[in-house]
């Protein structure tokens, strides 16, 4: 009961602070601008709609984590610093209600903002250039929302586990760098350490699992299915030694691993990974929060 009260209040606050509207505005503006610039340089009118989808997915890798971390990193520690937590706790809210209420509230904010924002920006693309496939569009918007919820979990977890705004901010920026830059390189490093060589065109299946365990990797895996293989890593670290001149067909996941695709490389497993990122960091944050003096 009180968990839903906390979630509802948090959501209302976010709406009142126009946070949702700000995110939607920035999302639409940013995406629209980049898309127009990029599309004007592309030719072949038939592929334009799908190119818009691909570009949206590509940019979401950076934009969605950024937005979710900004929206979530102060969720708990903000109330802790302002002292409103001390007031909340004297009413029948437990620390558990507060952390998970915040998680639900902020997740709803992010889900709605990203859902509306990405729908609007794709609508703009449809009107200006060409209509992408409706099924793929819906799928991509769904995966963007799920991706946003996963990073909200990371943000709320960070927020619950620290006592100062500075630490929350440092951890939020740190996690962004880790997931966007370090993770893939580390996966390649682990692969090199185990097998003796950097990953090439054909690799062991578990290498892809390593990459997909990060929320960014899991999102890339799911979204890739909706943009016909156009989705690459946002920052190419160049640690995979793939020969020049390989066709997109050769680079498909099923052709790079030996034998049948294991269950952990399916899309639903990547979906579960995102759900886990939405919950597990918040649970860790709660455990630390429940033991600390506020």
């Amino acid at each position, binding site marked *: 009961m009180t968990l839903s009260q906390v979630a509802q209040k948090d959501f209302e606050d976010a709406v009142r602070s126009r946070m949702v509207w700000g995110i939607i505005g920035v999302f639409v503006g940013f995406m629209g601008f980049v898309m127009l610039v990029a599309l004007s340089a592309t030719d072949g009118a038939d592929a334009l709609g799908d190119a818009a989808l691909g570009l949206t997915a590509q940019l979401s890798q950076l934009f969605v984590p950024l937005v979710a971390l900004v929206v979530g990193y102060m969720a708990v520690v903000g109330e802790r610093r302002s002292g*409103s937590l*001390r007031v909340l*706790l*004297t009413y029948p809210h437990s620390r558990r209600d507060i952390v998970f209420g915040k998680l639900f509230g902020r997740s709803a904010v992010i889900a709605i903002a990203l859902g509306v924002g990405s729908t609007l920006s794709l609508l703009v693309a449809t009107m200006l250039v060409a209509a992408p496939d409706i099924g793929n569009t819906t799928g991509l918007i769904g995966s963007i929302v799920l991706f946003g919820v996963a990073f909200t979990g990371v943000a709320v977890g960070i927020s619950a586990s620290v006592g100062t705004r500075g630490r929350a901010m440092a951890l939020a920026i740190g996690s962004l760098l880790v997931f966007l830059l370090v993770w893939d390189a580390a996966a390649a490093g682990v692969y090199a350490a185990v097998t003796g060589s950097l990953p090439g065109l054909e690799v062991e299946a578990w290498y892809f699992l390593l990459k997909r365990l990060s929320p960014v990797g899991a999102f890339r895996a799911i979204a890739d299915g909706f943009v016909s293989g156009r989705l690459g890593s946002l920052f190419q670290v160049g640690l995979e030694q793939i020969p020049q001149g390989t066709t997109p067909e050769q680079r498909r996941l099923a052709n790079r691993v030996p034998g049948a695709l294991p269950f952990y490389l399916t899309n639903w497993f990547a979906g579960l990974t995102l759900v886990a990122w939405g919950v597990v960091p918040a649970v860790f944050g709660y455990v630390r929060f429940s033991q600390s*003096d506020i």
Partner: protein
Amino acid sequence: MVAIRTRGLSKRYSGGLFGSDVTAVSDLDLTVERGEVYGFLGPNGAGKSTTIDMLLNYSYPTEGTVEIFGENIQENPEVIDRRVGVVPEGYGLYDRLSGRRNLEFAIEWQNASDDPAHLLARVGLDADDADRPVGDYSKGMTQRLALAMALVDDPDLLVLDEPSSGLDPNGIRRLRDIIREEASDGTTVFFSSHVLSQVEAVCDRVGILDDGELVAVDTVAGLRETAGASSTLTLTMENPPSPDVVRSDGVSAVDVRGKQLRVTCADARAKAEIIARLVERGHNPIDVGSEEASLSEIFGDYVRGGSAHDDGETATERNTPQQEVAT
């Protein structure tokens, strides 16, 4: 029935790798009876807020237990939610929302049926102010609102950490009235202060905390007696009579300086009798002044371990209202 009981309550902060540990509260055994008004007194940094934080589960003791209405709060934290109203130290309200909305949230959270207008009137926050956002409030107005929120659902125990800070004299008087009303209603009130006159005015009992330890617990009168504090009657007269005229049982010293007759009484009740006796014998005073030994000097004795209260120099600062203990 006991409202608050702590046993061996201690809080130590680790000094880290190179620092030394700091003990904020040490082996505190505190008992607050049901229905009493208990003043928790001590200089800043004595450990009052640390203790209150542990009473409310904001922070956890290194050792010891806290029971509220007989329930161990670490096992049953709900007892705080249900029965305790709090104005904590360093609290914050929702700045963007109006005072009334903040209060309505408190009522809704507590699942209570209080009338916001009634609570606002009790703490003296008028309707116009209640509709403004809390971010625009002065410290005193915020404090009144926080008190209104603590009174939601008629708590059995009211815990107030420095409730008078930021209040004007009017607000302080109202706070005192509210504390008295609540107490007569059977509510236990536990409040901390470093402003002595407030503790003195409303408390049934006072506990003095110094450097994390409870150095004295007694009634205000009892503390006064223990410390041997006395009260002084100063009579200004055209022709002061011989000191022998006023000497009696309750009088410990008589001193004549020019037109002033200073009578030090061990028992404050002796004063009226002295005046009556003087008037009866035709020595009409031009002016009568009376000084009560305040808690301030008694307090000074306990926290500094000295006995500086008996010399003439401290007498001038004895009854300064609102006097604060050195920090």
